């Protein structure tokens, strides 16, 4: 009885901290539902400014921008949300819808099917989930090791050996996935075009030959940096230089 009371007390102490966050989020959500999309996007941005994040905020912020008619900003925030939660279907859907309204229609270069499969599997969870899974699997490996070492019957030894090897393999997979997902967030290579239209040059120079034209909302991969210029690569493999002010990193 005493223990239950003390737990409740501890929870009550924590409540104000959590409640504050929720209130801010709820307020912003309310602004959105009443149709004040621009105010809502400001409110979400305020929350993000305090140095906290989660995929939900990015998703909601993306929605607010979309509803205010700011397509590139919406795409940027959906992309950010997707980085945090690659498994989220809603983010994926809204991002796809926003992308379909951009002007540039790009063909994707087909990946090798195996790497595509691996990528799809990896995107089923974010870095933390893979990390938890890897801990669980590693613990499993250790348990199997125990069983193998201390059991006296041959059958048990055999089973524990194979299960142990399997979980070791799965541990390595989830470990590398967790690492990859974290790298995606730490080394953000992609950017969204923010300028209504931008001419991509062949060299990092204003007088360079104009190669192609990109419009707002298009996602590009930043390959190289030279002063104010960024070398970008499109999903169809084309490369070129543009000014850093025309893009916004995801």
């Amino acid at each position: 009885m005493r223990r239950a009371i003390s737990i409740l007390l501890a929870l009550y102490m924590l409540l104000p901290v959590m409640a504050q966050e929720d209130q801010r989020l709820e307020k912003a959500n309310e602004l959105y539902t009443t149709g004040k999309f621009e105010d809502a996007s400001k409110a979400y941005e305020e929350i993000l400014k305090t140095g906290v994040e989660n995929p939900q905020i990015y998703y909601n912020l993306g929605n607010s921008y979309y509803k205010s008619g700011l397509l590139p900003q919406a795409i940027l925030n959906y992309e950010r949300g997707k980085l945090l939660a690659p498994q989220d279907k809603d983010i994926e859907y809204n991002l796809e819808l926003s992308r379909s309204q951009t002007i540039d229609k790009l063909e994707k270069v087909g990946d090798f099917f195996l790497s595509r499969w691996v990528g799809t599997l990896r995107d089923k969870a974010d870095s933390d989930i893979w990390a938890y899974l890897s801990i669980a699997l590693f613990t499993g490996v250790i348990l199997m090791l125990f069983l193998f070492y201390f059991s006296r019957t041959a059958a048990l030894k055999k089973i524990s050996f194979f299960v142990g090897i399997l979980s070791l393999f799965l541990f390595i997979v989830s470990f590398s996935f967790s690492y990859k997902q974290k790298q995606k967030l730490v080394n953000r290579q992609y950017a969204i075009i923010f300028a209504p239209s931008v001419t991509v040059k062949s060299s990092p120079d204003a007088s360079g030959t104009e190669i192609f034209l990109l419009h707002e909302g298009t996602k590009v991969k930043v390959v190289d940096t030279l002063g104010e210029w960024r070398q970008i690569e499109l999903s169809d493999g084309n490369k070129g230089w543009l000014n850093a002010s025309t893009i916004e990193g995801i």
Partner: protein
Amino acid sequence: MRRKLTSIVLLFLLPLIAFAQQTAFRGKAPQAVVLNDKFQLSYTINEDATDIRLPQMEAFNILMGPSISRSYNISNINGKVTRETTYTYTYILKSSKIGTFTIAPATISVKGKRIESNKLTIQVIKDNNSTPSSRNSTPNAASGTLSSQELFITNTVSKRSAYKGEPIVLTTKIYTQVNLDGISDKKDPKLPEFLIQELKSGNIAWSVKNINGKTYNVGVFERKLLFPQKTGKITIEPTEIEFTVKKRVARRSTSVFDNFFESNYRLVKQRVKSKPITLTIKPQSGIPPEGFTGGVGDLSMKVTTSKTKLKTNESITFKVVISGTGNHKLITAPKIKFPADFDEFDPTVSNKFKNTVAGMKGTKTFEYLVIPRHPGTYTIPPVKFSFFSPTVGKYKTLSYGPINIEVEKGDGQQQLSNVVSANTRESVKFLGKDIRFLKTGVSKLKPAGTFLFGSLTYYASLITPLLIFILLYFINRKKLKERSNVQLLKTKKANTVARKRLKLSAQYLKSGKKEQFYEEVLRALWGYISDKLSIPASELNRDNIRSILEKSTVNIEVIDAFIEILDTCEFARYAPSSESGEKDRLYNSTLETISKIENQIKR
């Protein structure tokens, strides 16, 4: 009747309606006359005047005059009626001296005022033809042809050397001493190397000129502007004209009336040819600069934009006006570098120039229509127009700009916020689809950039089970080792317990006291079991010892050995003789059994 009256009244009112006109009194005479020839001198005035007085003229004699003629001219221009009356005073004069003479202004009196006319200059030239009166007759009349002396044409150019694109005036003049009736045929030179522009000319203005002592009627037949398109030496082929010439024919008349009714002139066809001219066309020196579109001459440029601030899908017009003298016809539209995102249409060209001796004069206007499709601020680089100036012999570049254009988002793209519009992209598959609604569930916010992977917690949670395993492994190993050590110690301890119990019996064995020895062994055995299992010695006997020991998990062999010792001792106590070796053996087996029981026994 009534109407007629009104019109008559109106007719009389007309002069009143008409505006008061400027009084003009002008004299007119040919520029050049042949000595001893008669010519007309006339003065015109547009008002009723009296008392015309001619100045003193020493070189001319007045043969006749003045004869006065009057002309009316009523014109109605856009409802404005103008009535003009012109009085012409004509004199017939005859020149008497060779040279250039000036006739001082004549005076006339208009409403009591004296008005002066303009001065006139007349050149009197000598006619070398022997008979001035029969100038038109030809010596070789019988043959029916004319000599090249009597009728010829010349082609002259304004310059013999020019830059490519620089205009050259080609003038064709007719020199004649005969009466020309008309032109029946003309063959112009083919000039593929030139762009030709005809200079407008009205009727041929004839003048009299003395060439090599001969008097000719000279008229400019035509003038052409030539714009060279090729460089190098270019020959202008001769022009050929076939004239019809009125020729007096000496005919013997059969009747007086013949002479009177029939003409004694005959029309003769005469073909004349000019001389070829060779021109040198120089190339434009230097490399054409940026913005050169073929312009040669003295030109200027003006650029105007219809607006610089607009919304998407609205249009802007850029107007480039090229003005001055040059080869307007050959100037193509200067290139304006519009941003690639602008929809651009071909420029429309409008010309407003006329051909002059110096080249084409006027303006050429290029209008560029562009439509920006996307919002943003665009900069159009300077509009450059270059042309070649033949007077300097160099290229000149004019530039305007850069021009900044601000494009705002038009109304057409505003609808994106609510419904996917069908025309924003080529293939929009769905209509009326919207983004999914907010995520409203409670979720935890975590500081940005925090990951489980790579954190201390992560590695700790990985290493902890591993460490536990390693720890347990070593503990297990140590325990196994220790277990074997304890066995050894226990045996040792059990031995000492047994030895202690059998201490007295060992003394008796040494001293050879047989009975005490056996008794002491028995007591040691019973005492040991009693102490070990905490059972009083009185409750122990040979019958229950087996079950008690079995309960205490002692091995059957050991129990058998224990009972055998008991039996041996009981038996030996009362047996008469026994060897000392047997006692030693019993002592040792007792010692061993107690040790074994000590190891195996459990309370």
